[in-house]
């Protein structure tokens, strides 16, 4: 059964940046923080050529993959048109300044 587990404090993620949650299996998860202090989590793998999205520049509710510049929508995991592609999303929540990830 999946449940929310604490991963870090919001302050541990830079604003307009991301941190990576390492997983034993299933690939790393990138946790993003926007300018408005919203948090989103995506599989840390660009649907285009597998670039680490966690290392990209975050703007609005988007992240730009550092390898070839594909933009991914943080709240849906979809590539921004006209690009196509989808990146798996994970549920995250913010509670009392801490970030919880559903695993």
């Amino acid at each position: 059964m999946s449940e929310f587990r604490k991963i870090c404090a919001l302050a541990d993620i830079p604003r307009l940046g991301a941190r990576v949650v390492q997983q034993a299996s299933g690939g790393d998860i990138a946790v993003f923080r926007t300018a408005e202090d919203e948090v989103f989590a995506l599989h840390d793998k660009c649907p285009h050529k597998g670039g680490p999205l966690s290392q990209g520049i975050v703007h609005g509710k988007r992240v730009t993959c550092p390898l070839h510049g594909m933009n991914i929508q943080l709240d849906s995991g979809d590539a921004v048109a006209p690009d196509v592609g989808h990146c798996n999303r994970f549920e995250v929540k913010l509670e009392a300044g801490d970030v919880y990830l559903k695993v």
Partner: protein
Amino acid sequence: MSKPKLVMVGNGMAGVRTLEELFKIAPEMYDVTVFGAEPHPNYNRILLSPVLAGEMKVQDIILNDHDWYRDNGVNLHLGKKVAKIDRVKRQVIAEDGTVEPYDRLLLATGSTPFMLPIPGNNLDGVIGYRDIADTDAMIEAAKRYKHAVVIGGGLLGLEAANGLKLRGMDVTVVHIGPWLLERQLDEVAGRMLQKSLEDRGLTFLLEKHTEALIAGESGRVAAIRFKDGMQIPAELVVMAAGIRPNTALAESSGIYCNRGIVVNDTLQTYDPKVYAVGECVAHRGIAYGLVAPLFEQAKVCANHLANYGIGRYTGSVTSTKLKVTGIDLFSAGDYMGGKDTEEIILNDAAGGVYKKLVIKDNKLVGGVLYGDTADGPWYFQLLKDGKDIHEIRDQLLFGQSMVGDVGHQGQSKAAAMSDDAEVCGCNGVKKGVIVKAIKEKGLFTLDEVKKHTKAASSCGSCAGLCEQILASTLGGAYQATASDKKPMCGCTDHSHEDVRKAIRERELTSVEAVTKFMEWKNADGCEKCRPALNYYLISTWPHLAKDDPQSRFINERAHANIQKDGTYSVVPRMWGGLTTPAELRAIADAAEKYKVPTVKVTGGQRIDLLGVKKDDLPKMWADLAAAGMVSGHAYGKSIRTVKTCVGAEHCRFGTQKSMDMGVKLEKMLFGMWSPHKVKLAVSGCPRNCAEAGIKDVGVIGVDSGYEIYVAGNGGIKTEVAEFLCKVASDEEVMEVSGAFLQLYREEGWYLERTCHYVQRVGLDYVKQKIVEDGEGRKALYARLLDSLKGIKDPWAERLDGELKKEFEMLAVQPA
């Protein structure tokens, strides 16, 4: 609170483009209602000619389908003609009785074909050429009748005539002027065009005045009679004798109209709540009938509708191209010339090539190209930029390739390229793919081409070529922006220059302050503008502006180069390319310890350790630091390397100590951020083993001192560095090199290499600033040294503390 209501009358290209621009910058601002008299959604009117010619289908030229209106929440009334505007009650009333109130009204009613006021102009079979219905009527007529007459030898008339001919009709073009396209071509080009159209089977009657259209037994037009008594059969008559701005609706509501609906530079009519754009408009007395100026109007209008209050439309210089497949024709600006202009002409009648360039005060002011139009976009850019062509005058006529600027920035002969020629080498995009996307998706800008095809979206060296392809595909619809006025990115309308100026003059010291002050459309910018802004801030206010790591590309954030598999490469600095056994040992140990799969010597005489995991970076740096090594900045828009030969220290030909000089320069410049990467080289003699001739700054030792070269580039397109000056001492090398780099740091645009910067400002300008102005040079040098004061090694800074977080992974904590 309910939103204000924006009603648009007219559903054509100019109006809908205005909405698109508006939705980009203020998507939620208005409740939008659109009235379109035609039953179709917005389509690309300029592509009606290819539809008539059978080269495209109607569905290919739809720009915004019904989904687009729905997705953007537009209340769309199609097939409803607006009958009345009540400006007192602020409402619009359609012929079918639909009433829509407005807070802002946008008139985009376009134009109507001018129907000659002659007897018979209302007969069956007599049509204008304006919309899909007209095109359908022509296609239908071509199936049933033989004789077509097109009245008007302008662009539209010739395109119609060509299309009808291709559909099997006998076509005669009647033109009142002495030659074809007299508003675009001079007589020579006009005659050449006529000849090639005649070869295709078209018939021309020039300087002919139509007297009447004569009905046949069925009541349909059957013949046309001229004032000289001549009469020819005509079962289809297409009037293409000009357009009239459609001002009837505006006039009836009391809005001042002259040659069109009169608007000011913000596209407002005499009623400030009512805006107007497109062919229905007269701006500074001019009504434009080409699509490019209308798009410029759309942009400015949207800006004001969104209450941004910036941007003025000040009129357009236009260029045209005939959309008749196989006929290459280009004209722009003042193509006729006059007393105070000079002309350069090439006239090869047998070869079917004619070129005329009109020059005034050493600037290109107009031109006509016939038969070979490949350089049209380049000439148009020179014209719009108002570039001084004095230096290239003797080669100007032979085109850009003769000026020696082919390839880099991608300018080459786009029109002559075959469809399967590769345009973008990074992403493997062929010309045919780009042309197809432009046509099918209705692309008009380089940005759109980048987004849809990926061409020019990586290294950007083919951007110029893509623009040429756009220009040659779109013809008159293409509007090149003067290059120094191009917006930084989609987040703003401001150019790099404007932004740099604002940062300096307004003393802005953070990315947020800039985006706020300059009214960025997206509060936190994008991946394109943020790195540029961050650079402008730290280079303008070295010790004041705070560096923003989140506005840096990952390479500069992690101080290592990201590789295709997400690992990193580490390059320790080797000053001037020199190293020691102890350093080599430390590098070898680190490579083994962190299981580096590839160890490579770089082109810049450094050792590259490839395939390092991100979380190993700080550990590896610590090991290298223990052996006295610092970051090589092999990842940044910054000083990379100073390459050297062995010089007078060892070489039997060496005249100067190049290793020593190289080390001094590299130590001076350590940690210098710049608009793009910067590489130097020092050679000990003119044999130039350090390849100083293709570096941003190249120093070559000679017996009496050093020669300094600048703005070379070994990258995308090899650029040989240009001679700047000769100096006698090591100190002068440091001062001149430093001052040049500081000038580039202060004036270069982000991602502009020194070669492009120098091309933009001119070598004379650089010489004046660096060589002639001694005081200025010293001041530049002092500013460089000041900004580099107290620079820390980025690797050492990240070994612990807050900055180390970047490299640490998170783990799920136990429940």
